[in-house]
Structure formats: C-alpha cells, structure tokens
C-alpha cells in the first residue's frame, strides 16, 4: 500500500527567478502529478494600457524586461494597421536587427539559467560574459540596455550610424567564435546530457492539445514560427526537433542563436538610407490582431478602439501562459530533483504571463 505526499514547490524557491507555485504529488521519489498556480505578480497592465494610446507606447515595453522590444513592436504594428500607414523599409530592417539582438540576449540568459539550475555555475558565468558586449552595443545604439524606447507609431526614432554597423558586425564575429566553444559544452558534456536527455518529455499530441508555442513546441515536432510570415526577404527556416525532452529544447535555443547571428549579418547588408518614420494623425478606430515571434513563442495583441484617445480593450496573449500549463504533462514520471531543471528548460517568464 503506498501513500502519496504533497509537496509545494513554492512561490519562493532558490532556483526560480520569479514566483511560481507547483504542487507536486509524490510516490516515494517519483512524481505522479502536478498542479500549477501563478498570479503572484499581477499588475493590471491591460487596464492601464487602455488609458491613452500615445502613452501606451512607452508603457507596453515595461510588461516584460527581457522581451521588451517585441512588445513595443507588436503594439506599434497593430496601431499602424489601424491608422493604415505603411512603415518605410529602412525602419523595418532596423526593427528586425534589434529584435534579433534581443533574441540573442534572451536565449543566452535562458541557457545560462539552465546551467545554473543544474549546478554548473562556471558555465553560467561564461555565458553572461559573452552576453555583455551585446548589451553594451544596444546601449550605444538605442540609449538604454533593456527598455529601448526606439519605436513610435509609424517607424523608429533613431538610426544605426555606419560606425555602429561596423561595430555590430565585429561583435557578431567575436560572439560566434566564443559561443561555439560554449555550445560544444552543451552538446557533448557527459553531466549535462545525463541530467537533460530523456527527462520531461512532451509528446506531439500533448503539445497540440496544450497549444504550446515557441522553442518548446519546435522541440516536440510542431514546425511553426511567426518569422516565416515577416521575414520573407531574409530566407528563414524554422529549426525543429522531435524528441521533446529538455535536451532538445536547449539545443533548439543554441541553434537559434547561430541562426540569429546569420540573420543580423544579412539584414545589415540590406540596409540602405531612407526615412525613419511616417507621421500618423488623428485617433484610431476599429479592431486589429497582430503577432510577432518573441524568444519564448508567439506574442499576440488584440486592440479595439472607438475613435477616442482612450482605447476600448487591449488584450495581450503571451507565450508562457500556454507553455507553463504544459508542465502538468511533462513532469509525471521523473524524480523530484529533476523538476527544477525541467521547469527552467521551459523558460518561463512569469511577469509576462501575469501582466
């Protein structure tokens, strides 16, 4: 006769950066069930974003710290389709370059956090050292390390000067060379493989039922990436694996960093001079949907406006809200010390989820 124990993997835990509660049901040392609660970080952003549509450009970046430029871009894209203006090509390429730079910083932070959850602290520090030149370069181009404030309705506010383009290319060269050494550690190290291969498997049927997006979905065989619609002239193909375990998720992120470096080089080659933004006058009317591929998945905005300065309804759907719910299907069957590594390999961003 066996009894099961209920252990709260609480809101405060040393291996999570943000509050998330998982109640585990254990049988000796194996996990047989899990239940996920969040909601400790709710700030009421949807109500605050509906107050004034011009102030919301700077407020919607502050929903999340690590994917802030993606929120700003998708808000401006949906307002531009409501005003019916077309952004100049120069501004679109600048937005693409900055998005890929922020994707590199986000994926290297996710890989470093995974290494730290396994206890491999020196790999964590090396990855942060590689991330630092990119953050400094973004500070020089946009004016701030995290919340860029580069977007406005109709385009961007600043340009990338020719010296900054040369420095961006040389930073990318150095990053590629040093990062391939660290990627080799992720691919071949025996300890890393024993803690990640075969743990936290998400099958393709479960992935479809829980509607997962992003690297979690692409590691389970669902080949969908929003960049296929947006980057038509940059020759883009999504990276897909089909094992579905933690190792596959981390390998998708490692490969995506190399892919982003290639996309930045192509986009800088296509930059020509041109206008930075077009003016948009009046008040918005109508309703739109807009999507973009954030580092963790698909980010979706729905905005409804009635012709006044206040917006009627702003709805944000962030990728973590579906990825974290899929943890209830990934966790049963493994042992209790594997649970932090599986949770961190899903890469949750709880402040995005609870806005």
């Amino acid at each position, binding site marked *: 006769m066996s009894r099961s124990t209920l252990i709260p993997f609480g809101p405060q835990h040393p291996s999570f950066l943000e509050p998330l509660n998982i109640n585990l049901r254990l049988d000796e040392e194996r996990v047989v069930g899990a239940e996920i609660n969040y909601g400790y970080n709710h700030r009421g952003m949807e109500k605050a974003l509906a107050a004034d549509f011009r102030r919301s450009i700077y407020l919607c970046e502050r929903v999340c710290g690590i994917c802030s430029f993606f929120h700003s871009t998708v808000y401006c894209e949906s307002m531009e389709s409501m005003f019916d203006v077309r952004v100049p090509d120069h501004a679109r390429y600048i937005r693409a370059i900055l998005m890929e730079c922020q994707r590199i910083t986000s994926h290297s932070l996710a890989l470093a956090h995974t290494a730290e959850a396994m206890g491999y602290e020196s790999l964590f520090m090396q990855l942060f050292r590689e991330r630092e030149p990119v953050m400094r370069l973004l500070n*020089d181009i946009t004016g701030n390390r995290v*919340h860029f404030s580069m977007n406005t309705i109709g385009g961007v506010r600043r340009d990338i000067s020719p010296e900054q383009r040369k420095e961006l290319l040389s930073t990318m060269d150095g990053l590629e060379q040093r990062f391939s050494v660290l990627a080799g550690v992720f691919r071949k190290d025996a300890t890393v493989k024993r803690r990640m291969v075969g743990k936290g498997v998400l099958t393709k049927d479960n992935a479809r039922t829980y509607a997962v997006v992003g690297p979690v979905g692409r590691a389970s065989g669902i080949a969908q990436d929003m960049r296929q619609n947006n980057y038509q002239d940059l020759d883009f193909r999504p990276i897909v694996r089909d094992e579905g375990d933690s190792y596959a998720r981390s390998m998708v992120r490692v490969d995506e960093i190399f892919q982003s470096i290639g996309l930045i080089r192509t986009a800088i080659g296509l930059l020509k001079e041109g206008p930075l933004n077009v003016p948009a006058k009046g008040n918005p009317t109508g309703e739109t949907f807009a999507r973009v591929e954030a580092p963790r998945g698909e980010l979706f905005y729905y905005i409804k406006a009635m012709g006044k300065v206040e917006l009627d309804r702003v709805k944000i759907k962030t990728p973590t809200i579906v990825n974290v719910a899929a943890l209830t299907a990934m966790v049963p069957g493994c042992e209790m010390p594997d649970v932090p590594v599986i949770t961190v390999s899903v890469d949750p961003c709880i402040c995005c989820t609870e806005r």
Partner: protein
Amino acid sequence: MSMLRTVLRNLVSGPVTLKYPNAPANIPEGNRGRLDWDMEKCILCGLCQKRCPTLAVTMDKNMGIITLQVHRCISCGVCAEVCPKSAINVGREYSAPSYTKALRVYEKDMSKEKEKEGTGPSDAEKGSETQT
C-alpha cells in the same frame, strides 16, 4: 580543456567591476541620461508637458517655472524631440540617486519679457535641486 584557457586568462586579469559612484562610470556614447532645460531658448509653449508619457513635467506659464519630478522621468526623450526651439538637452550621465522624491526647478526671468529696453541680458537660467 577549453576551460583551462579561460582559467589562465582570469588568473592574469583583474576584476571587471568598477566602484561607481566613487570611480567614473564607463557609459557608452549614445546613452540617454539626465535631461536639462535651457531657459534662454524656452518659449513656454507647454508641448513638453503635454507629451510626457509619465506626466513628470509641470509648467507654470505666468511665473515661468518648469518643475521636473526626477523619480518619474524615464529618460525617453520625447520632450526633447517635440520641443520647437530644441531647448532640452539630453545628457549622458545618470541623475544622482536621492533619499526623498526630489524636484528639479528651472526658472525663466519673466521681467525680461516685460521690459521693452534693457541694459543688457541678465543670466536667466538656473537649475536647482530642492528636496521635498
């Protein structure tokens, strides 16, 4: 084996951290830091107050005083872009931290507007920090 090279490199070089604010900070060129108003050029039109996203700028047109709540300012630079006389200067260094919610007050000498003839221009700009 590749970590051995990193270990030797770290043994030779010193720590990377700077003891800011006792040592000067290493801030890149394009950084948006502290904002300052040049009151000689300011015509008190009020556009910076209308466009500020966090409502940090307040203006009194009769007295000619612009007040900035330093803790609300996010250094976005929208006021510097819309100012018709380019009277707002975006600096590189950050505003200093403080224990209370500081206000920064800029005054324009309104008596110069009312005089038709004057002996010479007096220095009308003053930026002072006051604690509240």
